């Protein structure tokens, strides 16, 4: 079973990389952009076939390693 996770920075955390990407987009003519925030994306293949159990395991991974909850949020986006 494949599960995907998106990690994003919390709202109040400075994201200088996102800012630079925003500036570059602006310089390229994409002037409608208000803000860019950069995050991380993971695809996790697991032997667990029960979607609920697999999701719970991935949630534990997020809490223990994949995300730092002081600055980041995680979202488990699909189980297939």
């Amino acid at each position, binding site marked *: 079973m494949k599960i995907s996770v998106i990690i994003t920075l919390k709202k109040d*955390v*400075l994201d*200088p990389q996102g800012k630079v990407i925003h500036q570059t987009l602006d310089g390229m003519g994409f002037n409608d952009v208000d803000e860019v925030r950069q995050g991380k994306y993971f695809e996790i293949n697991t032997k667990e076939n029960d979607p609920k159990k697999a999701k719970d395991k991935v949630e534990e991974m997020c809490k*223990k*390693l994949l995300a*730092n909850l*002081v*600055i980041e949020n995680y979202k488990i986006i699909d189980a297939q």
Partner: protein
Amino acid sequence: MKSAVITFPGSNCDRDMDVALKQFGFKNKMVWHNDVELPKTDLIVLPGGFSYGDYLRCGSMASKSKIMKSVINFANSGGMVMGICNGFQILVETGLVPGVLLRNKYLEFICKNVFVKIKNKKNIFFKNIDTDVLEFHIAHNEGNYFCTKDQLKEIEDNEQVAINYCDKNGKIEEQFNPNGSIKNIAGIFNKEKNVLGMMPHPERMIDNFLSGEDGSLFFNNLMNNLK
């Protein structure tokens, strides 16, 4: 006095720290990250470098390595632990000290000498030190100290700030903040003050010909405090 320096894959200041500790009288042992047991020691140092290539978040992988379980137990039972640079990043990832270290504000790797003001001398690391300002070296990409408002209040209430970036006279102002850290924080303690994490490298300031000697001041004082 005995010390132990933990080497992770990608550590690169471990030998400098070994040299520094020995120069000031410590009997130092190097410990590999995959070991489970610590040698008998009075001080554990997590050195600088780029453990696990800084993958995921700096220090995140190293904080889960085998030896860290013993290091965490050692710290929780009152043992002295010091994390320098990447070692500080590892400490925040273990939760032994609060907060996180983000990318530097202006996205530059910073490598230069800085001045830091000692904020709290009521602890074994800085007690009796004969100065308020130290010149240390920094070399990092992720040293931008950040924590939540609630955490900051707790840190300040418990006097957990160890050192702040400042000028040579000890003035703490935004213009002397190299990396965007909240309140110019360069190093912090845990609540009990037996764990210290800091971005600057005292081990790079122990030779008058190569650098300054403020690191010597720090290590000499530490040795005296531990005797």
